[in-house]
């Protein structure tokens, strides 16, 4: 057995004449958090749902936990967790009832009460789902996704509609799952989320994977020229340089200590991402 949780070779999927996924190779290593980035319609959800066994591929080889998702049985399902982009549950049932109920489908589920606490729904335990806010329903989605103690967790845009505090809490939860060795495939629109969580990111556009790299080095980001900004009596200054340390040392000498309003910036993940997507479009 290789240590790849997900292995994809030459994946193709078309809807009519539209090639939603057009030759994607992808490998997600066990215990890794991998983020798929890309604009709407890039193929993120199609790829994810093929890996989850919901959609049938047109071509290519796919292995998820060593199993072809098109032939995944109940044992295989018990080893994966899925948080869909738009799932719902019956509004008339309570948080606690649902989490306990879904736990009953799995051979070795987590403790439902602990999971409810972990996703921050302790106060809403006995509330009916229909009375939860959008963000709270999303947390319930996450609770139902992790209740089975999955080895591999799929998160399709999990924090859409979260306020900043809820998003931070969610990141903490993902950090704990990482600590337990859970492999996670994440799709997200939020680049800071990918940067905070992912070991590696893949940028998708028009059904093709443009680049795969750790967030810090994507698109040559680490080697890109830096921008140094500061302020003096003539107003703001900005230079672009391959040697920001030298520039700052010189400025420090010139100002004899603190450099007013000093900023040293590399391209953000968003800059790199937008450049990639833009170049493609």
């Amino acid at each position, binding site marked *: 057995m290789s240590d790849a949780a997900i292995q994809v070779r030459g994946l193709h999927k078309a809807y009519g004449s539209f090639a939603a996924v057009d030759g994607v190779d992808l490998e997600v290593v066990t215990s890794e958090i991998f983020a798929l980035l890309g604009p709407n319609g890039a193929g993120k959800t199609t790829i994810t749902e093929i890996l989850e066994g919901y959609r049938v591929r047109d071509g290519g080889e796919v292995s998820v936990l060593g199993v072809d998702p098109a032939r995944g049985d109940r044992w295989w399902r018990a080893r994966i967790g899925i948080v869909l982009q738009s799932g719902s549950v019956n509004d008339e049932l309570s948080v606690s*009832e649902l989490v306990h*109920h879904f736990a*009953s*489908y799995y051979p070795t589920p987590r403790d439902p009460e602990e999971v409810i606490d972990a996703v921050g729904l302790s106060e809403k335990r006995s509330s009916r789902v229909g009375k939860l806010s959008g963000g709270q329903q999303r947390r319930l989605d996450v609770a139902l996704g992790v209740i089975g103690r999955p080895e591999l967790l799929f998160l399709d845009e999990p924090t859409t509609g979260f306020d900043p505090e809820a998003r931070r809490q969610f990141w903490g939860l993902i950090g704990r799952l990482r600590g337990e060795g859970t492999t996670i495939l994440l799709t997200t629109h939020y680049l800071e989320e990918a940067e905070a969580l992912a070991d590696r990111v893949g940028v998708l556009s028009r059904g093709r994977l443009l680049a795969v790299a750790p967030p810090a080095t994507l698109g040559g980001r680490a080697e890109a020229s830096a921008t140094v900004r500061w302020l003096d009596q003539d107003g703001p200054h900005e230079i672009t340089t391959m040697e920001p340390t030298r520039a700052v040392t010189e400025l420090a000498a010139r100002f004899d200590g603190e450099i007013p309003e000093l900023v040293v910036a590399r391209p953000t993940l968003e800059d790199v991402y937008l450049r990639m997507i833009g170049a493609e479009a």
Partner: protein
Amino acid sequence: MTATRETATAPLPSLARASRHRAVLELKAEVRNPMSLAFTLLFPVMMLLLFGAVFSGTVNNSSGVTNSQLFVAGIIGSSILSTGLVGLAIGIAIEREKGQLKRLAGTPMPKAAYFLGKIASVLALAAGQIVVLTLIGIVLFDVDLPTSASKWLTFAWVFVLGITAATVLGVAVGGLMPNGKSAPAIVNLPYVALQFISGVFVPFNELPDWLRSVAGVFPLRWLCQGMRSVFLPDSFQQIEQGHSWQHPTMAIVLLAWAVLGMVLCVRTFRFTTD
């Protein structure tokens, strides 16, 4: 490491256990939804009270059966089809549209548990409904509970065959609905039409013979006729088609619909829309 995790060795929950959990959950959700419960339980009660009050008097023959007793039998038969077919088809269409089925399909729940849970909850609802309707019949409309064992036996097999056919047809039809919004219209239209030609709203003996034969193709006529054979005196048979309760034909038609429903379920039902 992944292959030897304890998840790989603990047993998966059995179908029986999963089905029991599903049934409890379905029933909880059903009785907590006031709209759905009102439609399922109160609608037939209201129809029974209205028709029973409006059309008083006796049926035009020597059996001494009143029109209201006729409605009690018809509406009990009709409620079986309504709970199974109409309620389930609409419910499943909505569950699918909202992604509830997709979520279930992503878990190791045995797929059969979903159907068994539905069947169990429909059985419980339909049984409750029949008790209420029968009680109203006894209290307000002089309906008598059958006294002979053979009539209770008839009741049992008509109910079981009827609810089975209605439930599997409900699952099949629900799976074929394009979306949740149009499901009520698509399902209710033929259901209301069937109610008129099957002896629910209009006494069956007053319909032209050819229309009674048309109704004989569908299950509702036989459910109503079956309930008449349970709750009305045998002398009423004189004005049935063929001057008989036609139990053998009844069993065959209901069974045929149950089989057709099962075949449709297996052939067409999908948890996802892809």
